């Protein structure tokens, strides 16, 4: 199509060059008079989608410290340190995410049995130092008032149960001693098992 020799080709080339340049210039000048599409970042921020995978947040009161997220993370950027107390209460020391490594793949959120870790809509994370990029997601450390109460209650419960059990045992013993009878497997059902993995891959968390 573009191959033509001799003078006709010369003229054709010249015309093509001038014409296509004009067309291109027409396009650029048209945009010259349109509004820019730029978003002026710090002043105006782009509306992120509801599903945006940004900086994590943790619903700590739901979290049962099952460490599933820690295991699911392909790059081991989650570190969880806690101490389990009676009454299903966890004394929190650390639930940190290393954002030097984190790649926001959401793999930690998908298997969570309680759906308590989420990727939020915050995305701007500017720090002066790399070490500051290790964020602790905990909203409280250690234990709350309510936890202490729960523990106390649990301990009291335990004590009561123990006492009851002791009493029962004593009674049973007495009974056993009195006559051979079937035992009571009454064991306190306290331990929460990690929930089954959500087969829908987390589903739509909206």
């Amino acid at each position, binding site marked *: *199509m*573009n*191959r033509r020799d001799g003078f006709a080709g010369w003229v054709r*080339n010249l015309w*093509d*060059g001038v*014409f*296509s*340049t004009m*067309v*291109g210039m027409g*396009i*650029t000048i048209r945009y010259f008079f349109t509004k820019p*599409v730029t978003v002026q970042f710090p002043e105006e921020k782009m509306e*992120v*989608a*509801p*599903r*945006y*995978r940004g900086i994590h947040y943790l619903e700590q009161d739901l979290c049962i410290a099952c460490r599933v997220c820690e295991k*699911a*993370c*392909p790059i081991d950027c989650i570190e969880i340190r806690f101490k389990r107390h009676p009454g299903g209460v966890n004394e929190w020391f650390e639930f940190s995410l290393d954002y030097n490594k984190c*790649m*926001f*793949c*959401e*793999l930690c959120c*998908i*298997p969570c049995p309680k759906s308590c870790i989420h*990727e939020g809509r915050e995305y701007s994370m500017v720090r002066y130092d790399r070490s500051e990029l290790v964020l602790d997601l905990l909203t409280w450390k250690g234990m709350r008032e309510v936890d202490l109460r729960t523990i106390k209650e649990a301990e009291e419960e335990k004590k009561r149960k123990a006492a009851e059990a002791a009493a029962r045992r004593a009674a049973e013993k007495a009974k056993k001693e009195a006559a051979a009878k079937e035992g009571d497997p009454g064991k306190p059902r306290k331990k929460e098992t990690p929930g*089954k*993995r959500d*087969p*829908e*891959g*987390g*589903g*739509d968390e*909206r």
Partner: protein
Amino acid sequence: MTDLESTPKEGTREIVLDVRTQDMEINMGPQHPSTHGVLRVVITADGEIITSARPYVGYIHRCAEKIAECVTYDQFVPYTDRYDYLAAMNNNLGYCLAVEKAAELEVPPRATWIRMICAELNRIGSHLIAFGTYGLDLGAFTPFLYGFREREWMMSLFEKICGARLTYSFMFPGGLANDAPEGWFDEVLRFCDVFDRKWREYDALLTRNKIFIERTRDVGVIPAEMAKAYGLTGPCLRGSGVRFDLRESAPYLFYDRVSFDVPVGQGEMGTVGDCWDRYFVRMAEMLQSTRIIRQCVELCLAETTPGEVMAKKPKTLKIPPTEVYVGVENPRGELGHYLVTDGKDKAFRLKIRGPSFCNLSIIPAILPGTMIADAVAIIGSIDIVLGEVDR
């Protein structure tokens, strides 16, 4: 400046008038504005004419294949995003298809349709980068930003469906992480319409520009036989006039249910297989992609109901010993995953065939004899992503 004290290399040669010139050895990259990443090409040049070129790769090798043996099947998905980071969806897709084939998972049709839409959208996004950076390589800045403008919309579509803008980790073995949110399909259709209009603009601004044509036609010609011999795939192969597209020749997903053309290079501006042909194949593919997307959206809405996007699969996927190979048509060519399993929850071996790596292999063959400016045009027209070359 050349140094005569070094012994003349094989590049030394005599040209007209007995002027003895010594070739200049230039390091193009790894830090060079137009090597598309950390590619290093050692060029021997006689003035402006290249006499030999040797690419060196491996600067961002990240052991993706080894990592695949150390993480579970689900956990590897984020890594697939990262080899061809411009087409993360397509990488996700290729990997998931391989795992699904090995595990014999049944993927719900809605997930398949959405996968197709995402793959094609990402193809557009990837080709837009190819288009933009190619303009950049040839000195035209504006098309780059126009391309980015449309790509931005495409990325926000992905953000709406999966929450990420570049590394999506959206497809998992068995289906998708999420179903499409409300109104997403409509926006996809709107995007297609607008994109088709903008495409005409790109065409007028860059594709049909005389300078652009002169820079790209008859440059870096890859004959069909040579392209096949070097194992090129994707637009590089089709640019040479070979009609080979996995979506057509070995349909996966529902590609056999939609109609589309496979653009091949026809030598419209010069020789078949020149830079312009490769470039134009990409441009034409973008239009085909919008065509596919429209059909997919229509069929998806007609045939499926929302919600069902993940196959039933065990909590920890364990695949009995088998080996599979699945190739998908990535924007840059055939992305192959060869997966060997051994019954554990991790792959025994995963071999990734990156299209860019194979396409790159042709550089030493076609660069000699061209000019340095052409080298930039040729490397750009092959459209490599170094993340995938090195993996």
